[in-house]
């Protein structure tokens, strides 16, 4: 059965490219426009991994990670940040919040797929 990955980004074009890349490689994808939308959609899906932007309206990526980790069902679900942000301090913040990894935009499809395979085992 295909694994489900949630992509969270306020940019529709980035969500589109993440979805395209993952679907071409056999994954099911759920899209959310920001952290708040993601947390709202999470209970309705069995999500195996989350790929989220950092800077988003309503609820940013760090807030989303904290929200996801607060749910016992998603305590160990891989969460990878996909952002233009490259500052070490931000990465440290994400890591402290419970992020599994960090990808700086723009990503290459093969990079994203390699990371997904790695973290999903």
């Amino acid at each position, binding site marked *: 059965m295909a694994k489900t990955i949630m992509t969270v*980004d306020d*940019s*529709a*074009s*980035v969500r*589109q*490219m993440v979805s*395209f*890349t993952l679907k*071409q490689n056999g994954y099911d994808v759920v899209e959310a426009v920001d952290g708040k939308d993601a947390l709202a959609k999470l209970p309705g899906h069995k999500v195996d991994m989350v790929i989220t932007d*950092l*800077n988003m309206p309503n609820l940013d990526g760090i807030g989303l990670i904290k929200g996801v980790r607060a749910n016992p069902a998603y305590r160990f679900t891989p969460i990878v940040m996909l*952002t*233009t*942000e*490259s*500052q*070490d*301090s*931000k*990465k440290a913040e994400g*890591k402290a919040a419970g*992020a*599994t*990894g*960090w*990808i*700086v*935009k*723009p*990503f*290459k*499809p*093969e*990079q994203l797929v*390699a*990371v997904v395979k*790695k*973290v999903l085992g």
Partner: protein
Amino acid sequence: MELSFLHKFTQKPDMAAGPAGAFSSEAADNPLVERFGGWSGMLVSLGERLQFLNGSTEEEFLAIGARLHDFYARAGEIERTSRRVTDLILGEEIGRDMGALQEILDRIADYLSHAERETEESTRTLDTILGFIDHVDDSLDGFRKIIKNLHMLSTAVKIESARLGEGAAGFTTLADDVERLSVSIKEKSADIIGEKETLARMIGETLSRVTTLEAEQRANARLILDRTRHSIATLTGIHGRCSAAAALVSSHSAEVAEGIGEVVTSLQFHDITRQQIEHVSEAMDELCALLGDRSADPSSTAAEVADVCGLQVAQLSHARDELVTAVERIVDNLRAIARKETRMSDETREMAGTADGAGDSFFAEMERDMGRVAEVLSENAAANHNLVSAMGSVVASVRDIADFVTAIEEIGSEIELIALNSQVKAANTGEGGAALGVLAEAIQHLSVEARARTGAVSDTLRKVTEVTESLSSGFDATAGTIATEVNSLIAELKGLLSSVRGVNGQLLSLLGSMDGEVQALSRDIDGATSTVGVHQTVAGVIGEAIAGLDEVVREVRPLVPAAAAGVQERRLRELVERYTMHSERKVHETIVGRGSAKRAGAASAGFATPAAVAASDDGFGDNVELF
């Protein structure tokens, strides 16, 4: 579309508009402050246009992204079709057909060699028969002399009989008998000559047909063998090319995947550029607020406006260049995908043995060759049948001649009886019949000669009959074998043709389908890329924003050359903190100076340079880090 879209951004900023607040009388007297309104108006207007640009260009990126799904799926389908073509040619069916073709080639070669030997043998036999028949003429010449002599003897007997009168009455009947024999031999000889000429003509025609058949057989044999060998060599070549083509298709597939990957990467630059423009807009908003700050020192404010505007010009230039390059990469890669698909289709078609787009294939040519082989074999079998039939006629004709010879032999016996009878009568006639006795003796000599002549003719015709019947029976015996062999070859060729036709049909269907898919994909990619104008729109709006910011800088610099060092550093540090991207920091460093940026950067948060990121690279790339 681009131009109509661009007009939304072309409203000129109002340079006369002033800041919202009012300055103190001292500050208001400063000539710099008079300019603040214009600069603020310019920055507000440019900021609004940049914000509008950010919110209005994503649709075009999304449209390209949506098409990418479709293009990728169709490119994959074309690749699968190309693989099916390769698999079909490399498949078991063609291999089996090749083996069968090789076997048939060998059998055809054997069959034709056999047919050639038979033709040579038939020709030799018919030549022999013709030679025998020529000898019949010599014997028949003798018959002409016998006929003449019999006629003369008949006349002489009649004269002598008349001279003797009553005593030689029986000789008149004898003369009539001799005359009748003369006529009879003449008639039979004429029949034999007629039949012999018919036979000679028949054999001549058969020989001519055999000779022609032989020439045709040899020519056709060369044609068949050459073409079949060529077909097998071509098929072997195609097999070789197919093996290489499988690797070629994989290579094409990897190139297309790489191109799609480039497009996926490039499409993200809308989001990247959007954020860069947002950072510029935020900086411009802050400048507007500063220009409206009545408590600020006008000179310091003006210097800061110039510094920040100059920096934003660099950031906008960088953002514009990145986005224009990204869109050009999208267009270039999509067009390259269309070209690669077309090339793969062409190479697949060429590999399959089709030199042009006429829908013809190597297999169609092979099918025609096989058809020709079957046709030639059928013609050959029919010619053999005709030859057997002609030999039957020769045998029948020789038998007819033999009947005539028997009749002549009977005449010879009759002459002998007449001669004996005349000798007895001459003896009974006494001395007066002495002359008749001489005539009777002459008739006796003729009967001996006639017997010798008929014996010679008989011997010759018996030889002809023997040879002819031997050849005929040989033909009868082999005709059945040849017919079976030819029918078997034709049946196998038909089976092979059916198989080749099936493969050819599948091949043409796949190639036709692939052609259609490639043409449609190329057309759609061409259509999609020809309408992409978002980069021109972005370049146009950013270009105007850069021109506006440059204008502000040009106005400020003659009035305030530089800001105080402390003020500049504080302001630039604030800007660095806003940056999220390494590229923004690089631009900042380039404009402001590495030392300043480092100080600003160190004072805020640390950021990873590519080198620093590379140091922690875990194989996924410089921009990926797993915790």
